[in-house]
């Protein structure tokens, strides 16, 4: 009986310590983002490569998925609105649900699956190969050189790709509103403008930035936890990805709470 409570206590302490460590680590990285010294030529080169791999390379696939998935989603939602006689809420559903909620979520899921897993593995492999130790030996700041470019890349990529996704959804919404409701572009635009709330858009953009920050920071953190054995790589990668998805859910819930308040 005693051992059960001990185990439970130990687990809770471990969890809280890990959470506090992550927050402290996030704080350190966040501060470095605003430091001029961080932006060395090597760091800028890494940042450029990261944006290229995360956003530019994925762009055709991302646009294709956004158009297909977004159009399908908008078509289904509009059809449901028509069937249930809720056409009056058309604008609010389009802006409040599809643009400010589903679009960032779709983007963050795509980027997490493609880039966050890659970052997690890359960091773990570097740790196993003692590349991190070598960089430290050459007095290269690991946070400035490896972490900050990836985190900034995460923020920029998620914000820009999510905005693109929203615009693609709004454009496909024009087509579906005409097909399903027989709505002209003027009426569609007017409904959209009436339903637009700048505070919601700002919350959505801020949420995207938070997503970008954590879906790169958490994999880096877990990747750096790898030991010098190859077998530790899959363990830290799986742990990192589980934590990334948990973070996505937490951020989503927090953003919904912000909207409610």
């Amino acid at each position, binding site marked *: 009986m005693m051992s059960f409570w001990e185990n439970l206590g130990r687990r809770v302490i471990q969890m809280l310590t890990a959470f506090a460590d992550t927050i402290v680590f996030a704080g350190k990285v966040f501060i470095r983002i605003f430091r001029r010294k961080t932006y060395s030529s090597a760091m800028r080169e890494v940042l*450029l490569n990261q944006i290229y791999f995360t956003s*530019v390379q994925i762009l055709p696939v991302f646009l294709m998925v956004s158009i297909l998935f977004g159009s399908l989603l908008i078509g289904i939602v509009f059809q449901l609105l028509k069937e249930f006689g809720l056409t009056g809420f058309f604008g609010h559903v389009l802006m409040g649900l599809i643009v400010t909620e589903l679009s960032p979520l779709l983007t963050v899921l795509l980027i997490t699956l493609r880039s966050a897993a890659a970052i997690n593995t890359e960091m773990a492999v570097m740790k196993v190969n003692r590349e991190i130790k070598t960089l430290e030996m050459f007095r290269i700041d690991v946070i400035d050189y490896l972490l900050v470019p990836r985190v900034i890349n995460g923020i920029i990529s998620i914000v*820009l790709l999510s905005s*693109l996704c929203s615009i693609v959804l709004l454009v496909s919404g024009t087509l579906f509103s005409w097909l399903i409701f027989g709505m002209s572009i003027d009426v569609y*635009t*007017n409904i959209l403008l*009436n339903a*637009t709330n700048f505070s919601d*858009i700002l919350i959505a953009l801020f949420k995207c930035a938070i997503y970008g920050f954590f879906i790169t920071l958490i994999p880096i953190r877990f990747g750096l936890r790898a030991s010098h054995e190859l077998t530790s790589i899959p363990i830290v990668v799986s742990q990192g990805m589980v934590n990334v998805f948990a973070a996505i859910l937490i951020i989503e819930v927090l953003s919904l709470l912000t909207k409610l308040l």
Partner: protein
Amino acid sequence: MTLSREFKVGLFIGCTAIIVVLALLYLAAGKGVFENLHAFTVSSKSGDGFTEGMPVVFSGFNIGKVQALELNEKGIVLIKIKIPDRHVKWIRSDSAFILYRPLIGSARIVVNTTNLNSPPLDEKKIPEVIIVNDINDAIARIEPALERVTQIADNVERLTSNLSDPKGDLHRILSNAGKITTNLASKKSLVEMVVSDEESVKALNDSLKKLKDITTNVDRILTKVDKMADKTDSEIYGKDGALPQVNVILKDIVGKLQKLDKTIDNINKISSDTSEGTKDLHILRSDIDDTLKTVEDAVKKLDAIIGLKKAPEFKVP
């Protein structure tokens, strides 16, 4: 030509940023962020249902929003609304401001302008807001229905309690029905159950038999009467019956009466002629009378003349 990685990243960030900024600017322009705003103040006795940011609607379109709510020294709520320049034309001096609180959905101020040619509303003028409340209206409509439902429920309760009461009407009816069916089961017929005496049933049967004999006799008499009626009918209405002969006689009388009518007409004419003749006699008589009177007057004059002269001589005309 192979584009460099830097160019591709720069192009992506630049283009996406421009698209996003243009979209935001379009939304901002559409929302009237860059437009001049006109402030109007409307009043209400209660601030219930009003919120800052509440939309102001004209013909279903958002034309502005509530900027601020204030309570003045007289305890009246002042609602300040801001209308962009392009929508200010809908706000006229005869515009009615209605707070509409639907049962579902958010409240809004609806502007109703009947005459768009009326002068624009002075920004210093403070019209009062009319309040339309769907929730209260719905409750007011539901209340009588609820009262009726309550009455019905009371009646149903009374009925069920009556039904469940062992001394109630239903139980009494059911026990009586039970008695009747038992009684009916023990008797030979329904009549026996009603009169509860076998002798009476026998007497009733005899009476019914006699009644049957009587009806048979009546039937026979009626047949005879029918035959007699047939015979009488042929004697009266038959070919050589009384009625056709009467008809012939009547036709003859009518012909004779027509002739008699002519004779009477002639007699009437003669009598009228005679009457005319007598009228002429009267005239003749009066003429003679007049002549006589004239002669008499002449004689009198002559007498007078003769009386005055001696040895009168006169010549007879």
